[in-house]
């Protein structure tokens, strides 16, 4: 059965249309993924940016006798419900420290409470009609305003949204990452050096290699179980401490560093090794003085990426108890601490709606740090990459 040319060319057109359809479809898939990314960042920015501003209120403080026992007495009853309770609690202490204040008055900007803050930002709030009217009037007089939220960057966690900040969690992250790097970097580099430069091609080496690839794919929560059962229960490392969190994350980061270091070592050409062996270097001298320095940029890049990954990890840290409530800012290895992602998790679980924007604000800070770290890695790679 023969077909006319018209039919064949029509068929051909159909086939080409189908081909074009696949192209548009696949382009659409990539576009969809990009769209997800854009929507995600837009959503986080719109939710998180308000967290960097906080309502403050200008009040007249009357340091009378009652205020030494109950801070609220220093405030005009009309605005006392609008001021943050954390500030009211400070007043008796202030008076005890400086008795000369007693009997004086002072006008200053103080932290408003979260409801005023949410009302000014147009979110859901719990102010009643009279309070809303007061806030509106004060705002018109310029006595209530949104100002840059320094509290957010200088204080620890709090049960009151307006007084909570990320500094304690940020410090916890720094301490945890120090432990992680101190363990994972040397062990990871040594493992990679052994596998690439020293190891004979035998059964043990193959087992180690398969094992490392497998470790990289084990769900992170299982590392948490390991941390709980071995580090905490068996070795008695203090629970919730950056030490145990850092050790757990180090085991997780290890495969990333090993794989990156191996790639970096492999990209150093053999001619370098031959030359060094040729002048009589021993194997360790070749590695220490020639191969490792040349592979260093690649190793650093891989380690930074591993660090960024560990920094965003939450699940194993929850298991080893690093979701503690940490109101005090302190840098410690063995006391209870929390980390940025865990702080985000804690805030996300707070019933108070005012914490939503704190959570998103914390997320923005975390994302900024991660983007900075990854950008550093990219720049490092671009700057020091050598093509042999």
């Amino acid at each position, binding site marked *: 059965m023969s077909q006319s040319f018209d039919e064949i060319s029509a068929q051909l057109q159909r*086939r*080409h249309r*189908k*081909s074009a359809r*696949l*192209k548009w479809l*696949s*382009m659409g*898939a*990539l576009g969809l*993924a*990009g769209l*997800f*990314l854009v929507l*995600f960042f837009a959503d*986080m920015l719109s939710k998180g940016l308000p967290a960097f501003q906080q309502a403050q209120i200008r009040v007249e403080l009357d340091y009378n006798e009652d205020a030494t026992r109950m801070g609220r007495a220093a405030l005009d009853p009309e605005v006392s419900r609008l001021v943050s309770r954390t500030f009211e609690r400070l007043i008796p202490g202030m008076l005890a420290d400086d008795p000369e204040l007693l009997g004086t008055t002072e006008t200053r900007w103080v932290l408003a409470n979260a409801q005023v803050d949410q009302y000014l930002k147009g979110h859901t709030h719990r102010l009643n009609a009279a309070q809303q009217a007061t806030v509106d009037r004060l705002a018109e007089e310029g006595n209530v305003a949104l100002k840059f939220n320094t509290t957010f960057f200088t204080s620890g966690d709090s049960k009151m949204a307006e007084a909570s900040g990320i500094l304690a969690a940020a410090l916890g992250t720094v301490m945890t990452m120090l432990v992680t790097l101190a363990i994972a970097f*040397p*062990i990871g580099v*040594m*493992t990679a050096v*052994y*596998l690439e430069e*020293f190891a004979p091609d035998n059964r043990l080496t193959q087992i*180690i290699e398969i*094992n490392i*690839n*497998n*470790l990289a*794919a*084990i*769900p992170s*929560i*299982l590392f948490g*179980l*390991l941390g709980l*059962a*071995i580090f905490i229960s*068996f070795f008695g490392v203090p629970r919730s401490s950056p030490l145990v969190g850092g050790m757990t994350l180090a*085991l997780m980061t*290890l*495969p990333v560093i*090993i794989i990156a270091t191996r790639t970096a070592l492999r990209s150093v050409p053999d001619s370098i090794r031959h030359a060094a062996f040729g002048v009589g270097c*021993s194997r360790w001298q070749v590695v220490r003085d020639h191969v490792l320095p040349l592979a260093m940029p690649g190793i650093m890049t891989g380690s930074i990426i591993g660090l960024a*990954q560990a920094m*965003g*990890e*939450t*699940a194993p840290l*929850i*298991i080893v108890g690093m*979701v503690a409530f940490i109101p005090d800012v302190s840098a410690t290895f063995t006391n209870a601490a929390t980390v940025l*992602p*865990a702080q*985000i*998790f804690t805030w*996300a679980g707070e019933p108070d709606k005012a914490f939503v924007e704190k*959570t998103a604000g914390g997320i923005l800070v*975390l994302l900024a740090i*991660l983007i900075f770290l*990854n950008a550093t890695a990219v720049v490092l790679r671009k700057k020091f990459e050598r093509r042999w």
Partner: protein
Amino acid sequence: MQTDQLLALFSGVLLLLGLIAFFLGRAKAARVRAGGTAMFAQPDQYAWFAVLTTAGPAILVGGLSAFLMLLLGAEIPPLYLLAGSLAVAALGLAVGVRQVKPDFHARQAIERVIRWILVGAALISIFTTFGILFSIIFEALRFFQMHSFWDFITGTVWNPGASFLAAAGRADEGASAAQFGSVPLFAGTFMITAIAMLVAIPVGLLAAIYMAEFAPKRVRTLAKPTLEVLAGIPTVVYGFFAAITVAPLIVDLAGVFGLDASFNNAVAPGVVMGIMIIPFISSLSDDVINSVPDSMRQGSLALGMTKGETIRDVVIPAALPGIISASLLAVSRALGETMIVVMAAGMRPNLTANPLEDMTTVTVRIVAALTGDLEFESAETLSAFALGLVLFAVTLTLNLVSVLMIRRFREKYRVNNL
């Protein structure tokens, strides 16, 4: 004395002994060499060898006895331990300095020591795997002593509520006995994983096809790292996104169709997890498609196939093992994903086929069991390890199958960069 004070004392004295060893060794070697004898190694190498013989055995003895003390619970007074290991250090110093002889290969000795140190470092990753395995298996076995394995695997009711009474020795008072039937948890896990794959596999695969076959080079170099950003976002952030933004959206959307959705529905965490997994699939598939030899494309095009037909009938079938392997890795990742489901999925074990209802997953229950105020010995806490064991077994199998498939692909086309 406190442990950390002892540790500081130990390190301090060891550092001092090491310094002494270094300078004694170097001085002696220099003296021998100055005498005109030819030596096998440089003075510095003798010095470093002396340092190694001083510090190595001492650290080994100290570490091992501390470990044994923990393991066996034996009581060695820490001061004796300190004195013992420092004595070993002093002995090592003497041996090391004595070994500074012209016919001693100090460099090779150092080499051997370093080799063992490197082997030790490489073994840590093996210990990690065994650590995970043993810690999970031991606790899981204790759980299975309390509750039968069969009930755990086939039971359809997960109700650990009364287990704390049993742990407190008041098992009889509980209104109902604790039940640990894990089927609803696995059903929830697989439901959410399936939704995630429904999003990730088509989008990821098509994006990979576009990047590998259609996209101009500029787009490709830009698109790949941009997609990787999706994989770099912390999961806790995705969890927040799923719970605060996507879940209400799904509820509204279901409302439009007259359906009733829970705010902890399975769709929101599933979809968000799918978005997170897109780059895993697209990146690996892109690599695989790129390593399909061009001769196959040329042959297909020469036979008059259109580009689309070439991709569908030649490239994709050839790359299939790699694509399946990528998808399996993605499934294993979705099964073990924790934060998204902890924050966005429900807490209630619920055996249902309706993704708009709330359901819980294995990882959620692990977290729930280990973050409460329960005794470590209680059945609920231990159940976390039993669940972890199953999770470990499933993900390990998926990973191994995936590795085998990619190896088959690699051998077939002799590509080395995968």
